């Protein structure tokens, strides 16, 4: 129970945070529609956190939709499946969202084939052991679809000496613009409950909570009705506030527990998954399918037909934008939400497993958001009162300006920052605080690596 409930506000939440405009009305009531296949798909081998997958196909080979094209490289890795039926065109370096080119498989589609998933092996989950489920989850190639892309089977593996009590399904979707989780919870709720049972079985958790922000009353009502009568799965309603969907914030809001600094939710008996991850898992696992498509929100002032689309993984942005109409002065493409997403430099970048949305911003909309002028920090403390981790971004920012990166880490807890961007959002002086912190972390990391060598 959060503090706010003690004061009678009735909604669970965490302390601090911000209330950015939501921009969700455009797409939140639009049903999920399938986007046409692109003539060519790009499948980066590293769409997940961990070691890149290893290709098991060769150039010129024909593959069928759903077929394995790259295998996992060790425990911290996942396999990759063909999103469509076609022929392997090349295996080599292709552009990625983060910037540098990275190894990828390029698949040329056969036009006019049915694009049915032919690879499957039915499994009865209820009879499977924890180990077998975790292996089966790994075989689907599932990663966190909320954006972190952390391999799901690794999350399901409970560390020694820890016990998972609660599975949490994260349906906060606190990033502005994004409505994929909203639609997935509305339209794929049966798959979601299947996925929750899989996660409970894999982790040995006795109960599950679906956490939803109170800006989605339709979902709350629908899922409450669908919850099993035995009370093992419940809906936890939270105040609409950014970053409510950050795992530490959500656990604090719903259970009153603080994940220790530097630790994982398992330290407080929680295993958390995005609702999109669980519903995909619920759809794929019983049939033994691999992860080959996902739902994304395409929105922003620069797009003609905003909505929620089921997109084959590997679809280049160019194709998505051609299909949905691109406004003339669109200048900025973001993968993910506007608070934590990644700005993309090339239209050849494909939709990958961790992409929850594509935002298209126009020159006009951007000019309103990007500060034209940066004032010195006047210590107004707006950032101090916004930081959900209770850091001191003002002091960190001043230290960053003086390049005191080590002091930032040692005395001001830089590494506890998870880069939600609240500080930059509120700063009236227009100081790019979280951007400074990313750089500081990267420099500290480099220095450590250099010292280790």
């Amino acid at each position, binding site marked *: 129970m959060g503090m706010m409930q003690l004061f009678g506000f009735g909604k669970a939440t965490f302390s601090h945070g911000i209330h950015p405009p939501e921009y969700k009305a455009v797409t939140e009531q639009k049903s999920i529609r399938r986007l046409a296949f692109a003539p060519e798909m790009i499948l980066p081998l590293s769409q997940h956190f961990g070691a890149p997958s290893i290709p098991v196909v060769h150039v010129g080979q024909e593959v069928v939709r759903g077929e394995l094209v790259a295998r996992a490289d060790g425990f911290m890795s996942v396999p990759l499946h063909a999103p469509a039926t076609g022929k392997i065109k090349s295996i080599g370096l292709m552009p990625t969202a983060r910037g540098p080119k990275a190894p990828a498989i390029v698949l040329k589609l056969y036009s006019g084939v049915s694009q049915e998933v032919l690879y499957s092996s039915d499994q009865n989950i209820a009879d499977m052991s924890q180990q077998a489920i975790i292996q089966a989850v790994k075989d689907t190639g599932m990663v966190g679809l909320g954006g972190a892309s952390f391999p799901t089977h690794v999350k399901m593996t409970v560390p020694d000496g820890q016990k998972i009590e609660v599975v949490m399904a994260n349906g906060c979707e606190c990033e502005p613009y994004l409505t994929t989780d909203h639609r997935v919870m509305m339209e794929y709720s049966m798959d979601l409950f299947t996925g929750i049972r899989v996660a409970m079985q894999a982790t040995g958790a006795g109960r599950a909570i679906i956490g939803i922000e109170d800006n989605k009353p339709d979902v709350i009502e629908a899922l409450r009705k669908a919850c099993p009568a035995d009370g093992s799965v419940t809906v936890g309603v939270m105040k609409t506030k950014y970053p409510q969907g950050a795992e530490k914030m959500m656990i604090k809001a719903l259970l009153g527990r603080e994940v220790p600094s530097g630790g994982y939710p398992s330290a407080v008996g929680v295993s958390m998954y995005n609702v999109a991850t669980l519903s995909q898992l619920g759809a794929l696992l019983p049939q033994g399918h691999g992860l080959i498509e996902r739902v994304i929100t395409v929105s922003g002032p620069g797009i003609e037909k905003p909505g929620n689309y089921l997109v084959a993984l590997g679809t280049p942005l160019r194709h998505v934008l051609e299909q949905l109409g691109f406004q003339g002065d669109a200048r900025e493409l973001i993968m993910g939400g506007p608070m934590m997403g990644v700005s993309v430099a090339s239209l050849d970048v494909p939709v990958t497993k961790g992409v929850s949305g594509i935002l298209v911003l126009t020159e006009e909309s951007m000019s309103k958001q990007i500060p034209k002028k940066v004032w010195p920090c006047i210590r107004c403390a707006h950032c101090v009162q916004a930081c959900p981790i209770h850091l001191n971004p003002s002091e960190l920012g001043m230290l960053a300006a003086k390049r005191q990166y080590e002091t930032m880490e040692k005395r001001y*807890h830089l590494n506890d920052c998870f880069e939600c961007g609240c500080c930059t*959002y509120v700063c009236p002086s227009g100081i790019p605080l979280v951007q400074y912190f990313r750089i500081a972390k990267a420099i500290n990391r480099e220095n450590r690596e250099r010292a280790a060598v």
Partner: protein
Amino acid sequence: MKLKEHRLKLQAAPLLKQSMTTGQTMRDVLLALLPATLAGLWYFGLGALLVLIASIAGAMLTEWLFSPAESRMQRLSDNTALLTGLLLGLTLPPALPLWMAFIGGAASIGLGKLIWGGMGQNLFNPALVGRAFLLATFPIAMTTWSPQSGPTEFFQIYASNLAAPFMQSVYDGISAATPLGLMKFEQQSTGLWALVSGNTSGCIGETSGLLLLLGGLYLLLRRDLDWRIPAGILGTVALFSTTLYIVDSTHYPGPLFSVFSGGLLLGAIFMATDPVTSPLTPRGTWIFAVGIGVLVVLIRAYGGFPEGVMYAILLMNAATPLIDRYTQPRVFGKGIKNP
């Protein structure tokens, strides 16, 4: 539509930004000061306006003179020098010689801000540094108060206003004690309505308690103000002075007189709240505010001057780095036992 070469911009997230800017905040504070400023001009006439102008001119000219040539106009357009000049002017006696007001403005920006490294770097409130400088340099002129002029005498200028620079100014016979002076030296209280409406002698901008509160309310609604600072200062002053009043009601004033007299409201709402020179965290802010409240009452009750707001704020400004050091927020997930 076919997309070939489309020029894309790269910008690191977050790409949303709330609209309030530091420049806007400065404009809000100026606006919030307007009612009390106009009241001061109404009560003290054209002479007071000239004092304000001289003080602002001193501040802005110093900012302009000591800024790098390429950023001069930009720095002036921040309105920070204008605000500092105005705040200083509001704490000056209306009959002060204009050249002194000008020097005070220059000292505010020069000694209060620029030598520290400019905006955001100073330890002390610049306007109060300017005032302390003037009080140390020209003690007689800074403690000679004029009675209020009626509306018919609006265009009369105090003779001392126009004193030539560096000459002993001539004070005409009429001078009046401030409510605090009356209290301290003659144990004579002033009516509450006179204090609230501003119908007393004193500094140009400090007399009207009601209009200062109105300005504070505006800043509160615009979220430009940390409410804890005025609340902590005024609460402490009320509490502490009530205690003294109970002990000895002939020498010490009651809580309402203490809150509405002198520069307390001006200082608590517009000067102690200067974010640059006050602590960052809520805990630190409370310590800071209570410290100012205690010092104000101590100086007023036991010090040599009838008024202590300026020194109280400056002293707590000096303590701010230390307060900040010991009131850092508890980082999420550190030092906690989970239920």
